[in-house]
């Protein structure tokens, strides 16, 4: 080792072996590693192991990908696309249904309203006016919309289940 070469330890040399092999270690750094290797049996052993490991692993025969891989990828992509579309559709339908119900409640103030004065008065119930509505079911046409949406979800889920 001459005076210009930095002193490197075994741990550093073991890491630099990768770069030495890659051919990216040049100049003074490469020289210092080579000098270290010349005088260090332990690091020479590590270098020999590196070469042999490369030979063993590089020559290993691993299975080839199955011929249907591209088709499997295509199926998976399409399935994901359909699921995403179904989820977006379901979310949009739920939003619309919620907006519809909210709009109905606003335009029909009598629905689902409890008279605060009546409920705050304790009693046996005989004094409740006949016209008071504690709960009113949603209008028939709203139920029809909800029913058709439900059928739509079931159809989508059945389609997905068949695939």
């Amino acid at each position: 080792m001459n005076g210009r070469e930095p002193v490197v330890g075994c741990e550093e040399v073991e890491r630099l072996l990768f770069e030495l092999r890659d051919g990216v270690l040049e100049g003074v750094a490469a020289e210092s590693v080579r000098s270290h290797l010349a005088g260090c049996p332990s690091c020479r052993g590590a270098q020999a192991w590196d070469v042999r490991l490369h030979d063993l692993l590089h020559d290993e025969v691993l299975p080839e990908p199955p011929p249907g891989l591209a088709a499997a990828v295509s199926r998976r992509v399409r399935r994901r696309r359909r699921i995403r579309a179904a989820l977006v559709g379901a979310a949009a339908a739920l939003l619309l249904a919620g907006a519809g119900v909210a709009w109905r409640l606003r335009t029909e103030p009598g629905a689902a309203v409890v008279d605060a004065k009546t409920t705050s008065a304790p009693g046996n119930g005989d004094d409740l006016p006949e016209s008071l509505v504690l709960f009113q079911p949603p209008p028939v046409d709203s139920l029809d919309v909800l029913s058709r949406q439900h059928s739509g979800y079931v159809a989508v889920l059945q389609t997905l289940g068949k695939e």
Partner: protein
Amino acid sequence: LDDPNELLRRCQRGDESALAGLVHRFGGRVFRLAYRVLGDAGRAEEASSDAFAKIWSAAGQWRGEADAGTWAYRVAYHTVLDHRRRRDPRPRLPPPLDLPDPRPGPLEQSLRSEGRQRVHEALGQLAEADRALLHLYYFEQLGLAEIAAIVGATREVLKMRLARARHKLRTLLGDDEESA
């Protein structure tokens, strides 16, 4: 056109035939990595097809800073490791190795007829991330810069991890510095 960058650009535009081109170009690499990490051809196929589906759905995130092949391989690398964790959070370890008599040199024995099998078994005892690193470096012969980009580590950290994995493998095979 088989240029990975062009294929990935076409994927960004929704061209499914470009995805098939990527599978044709990188399917072997991705499948071999999955096989190395998962140790089973069926699971490797599932992980590989999942990886390419993710490459398809994440294609819009590619901005061209990295080569398309490296970028795709990075997505595949993380998908494969996710599959390993999801399916088998605690890796099954094969039975301990029947270590050879050190006098003739265990490393030399490893190089004989059963050598490759022993290395394969020893690799099976490493953590999946270490196994993947050794595979990328020694089997696929990728450079340090590319592996660093794939695994998302700095070059220095990568060298440290590779050296550690290599050392563990050597220890598992019963070879130490003195016997080499």
